[in-house]
């Protein structure tokens, strides 16, 4: 198991390197230059100003040098650069925004699992009963209806009918945990239920497949109760494909939180990213992308590790 973990960690290094290169390049490929934006805001533009501005921001240097400066700062000093517009350190902004997005995502993931695992399991062990049909209908419904649509409905209609709308002044968790959770619970529920749809289906399918296996019959033949058969003999085998799906879904969560943060005005990384893209504020965009990329790589790493825990064959490979 130790060797397995070490190998997986070693594999992270090249992945993270390529991710950082792509993140750095992609922002600079967005049409419309930050210099143009800045100059147009200042009024009349002329050639001299442009060159001076480029030099001041370091854009006159070769791309490789720009990248090395940036990644060096990130790696050795935790310095993500300064915002081009606000001249404040990007690292500070990320530090303020990341916990909010993380909280929202984890809350959504917890809700998704709390819904999907029991319902998926029940749906499989009570196949073709009313409970199974209800679970499958719910899952198909949630697959078909996009989260942003539900979110919009929740923001718009209660406001029209009862004059109620979700709180938009964000309360940080540290100040008032209850108010904070009350605010995040609606977007988290929307994200979580959307997310649970695929997981329910996957859980049900793999459970049904494992339930048909001969070793499950062996377990029944030992006189084990249904609960022990399911928990000890079925679940561990059924979870392997489900964990993969959860891992993929967790990366979708990050994209989903951008939309939810926008709709519910939650000051997380998503909102920061959208503003920064419109402003072509490269250091912020690269910062957000890099943090997101690292998060996705780490999630995949955790998924890999869980394979090792669930499947004894993987450990020995």
């Amino acid at each position, binding site marked *: 198991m130790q060797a397995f973990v070490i190998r997986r960690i070693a594999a992270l290094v090249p992945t993270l390197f390529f991710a950082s290169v792509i993140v750095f390049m992609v922002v600079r490929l967005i049409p419309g230059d930050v210099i143009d934006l800045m100059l147009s805001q200042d009024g009349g533009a002329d050639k001299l100003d442009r060159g001076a501005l480029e030099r001041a921001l370091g854009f006159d240097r070769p791309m490789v040098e720009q990248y090395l400066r940036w990644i060096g700062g990130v790696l050795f000093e935790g310095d993500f650069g300064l915002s081009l517009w606000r001249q404040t350190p990007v690292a500070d902004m990320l530090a303020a925004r990341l916990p909010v997005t993380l909280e929202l995502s984890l809350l959504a993931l917890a809700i998704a699992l709390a819904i999907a695992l029991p319902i998926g399991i029940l749906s499989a062990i009570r196949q073709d009963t009313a409970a199974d049909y209800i679970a499958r209908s719910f899952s198909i419904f949630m697959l078909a209806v996009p989260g942003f649509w539900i979110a919009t409905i929740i923001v718009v209609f209660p406001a029209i009918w009862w004059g109620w709308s979700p709180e938009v002044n964000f309360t940080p968790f540290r100040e008032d945990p209850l108010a904070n959770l009350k605010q995040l619970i609606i977007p988290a529920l929307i994200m979580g239920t959307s997310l649970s749809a695929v997981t329910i289906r996957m859980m049900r399918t793999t459970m049904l497949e494992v339930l048909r296996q001969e070793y499950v019959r062996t377990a*029944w033949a030992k*006189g084990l109760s249904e609960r022990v058969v399911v928990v000890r003999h079925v679940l561990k085998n059924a979870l392997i494909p489900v964990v993969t799906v959860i891992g993929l879904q967790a990366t979708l969560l990050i994209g989903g939180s951008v939309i939810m943060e926008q709709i519910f005005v939650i000051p997380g990384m998503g909102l920061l990213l959208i503003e920064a893209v419109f402003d072509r504020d490269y250091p912020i965009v690269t910062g957000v992308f890099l943090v997101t990329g690292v998060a996705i790589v780490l999630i995949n790493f955790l998924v890999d590790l869980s394979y090792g825990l669930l499947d*004894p064959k993987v450990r020995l490979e």
Partner: protein
Amino acid sequence: MASVAAPLLAVEDLSVRFHTDRGILPAVDGVSFDVGEGETLAIVGESGSGKSVTAMSILRLVQRPAGEIAGGRVTFEGRDLMALSEQQMQEIRGDRISLISQEPMSSLNPALSIGLQVGEPLNRHRGVSWSAALREAETLLSRVHIPDAANRARAYPHEFSGGMRQRAMIAMALACTPRLIIADEPTTALDVTVQAQILELLKQLTREAGSAMILITHDLGVVARYADRVSVMYAGRIVESGTALEIYEDPRHPYTMGLMASVPRLDDAERQRLVPIEGQPPDLAAMPPGCSFAPRCRFATDRCRRDRPVLEPVNDGTHRKACFADVTQFR
């Protein structure tokens, strides 16, 4: 061999149906047999004859919702198993009656250690703690001749060969010294060289434990060596039953004779041809009205195609056959 007192297991008029897209299939149709204490009964038949389904219905483990035990009585140690609650049935499974299944490659759980799986029945039925059950599993594994059992108990099924896995299955089945072991083609999936070892082991250990065994097989060689009595199944019914010697030396049903003729024997004359049974087993969804073997039978008469023969004594012993013809005159 047949016990005078009430047998350990008595199956009476057992019927199992499968509900499929093609209609209701009578997989097992009015099957009756007894197994005495310590006795080995072989149930012989080709695939689809209902022999495995019969065995599974004793444990009430027929695949649901498709399969359904439609009727009959299964009396084990004086109790009607069909009348027990699921929970009472669980008390019996793995403790009084245990199962060794056909595919050692797929009947052990790939995610759990061998030791845990072998010791599990002790933990379940004897209230033995997990650490004691794991220690006991090591003893059980060495009893089935797995070398270095203490270390091998911590291994997982994929680290075991087919023969080793079947040994582990046997250790698991014997954990609680059951009164009855159901061995569903225990050696079919194994190499020929390993088959004999496994059967010898099974025979030796069941004898030591005094357990009875239902040996399901299509291999008549196995029957001759390891069974006390034999029931031959065809298309969901028992067509002949008797002692192993009677079935082997004096088969009375044309199907049994066909089975014998299609198996090579060491005492056959050199270059003697094997005789296959012509045709196919009947489609369970469209069973012929009379004897189900009639379409393939060279002795079949109009009566065979009209009426269904029932199992009747051949002699004053236990030898019985379900056939109108007297095949002895054709031999």
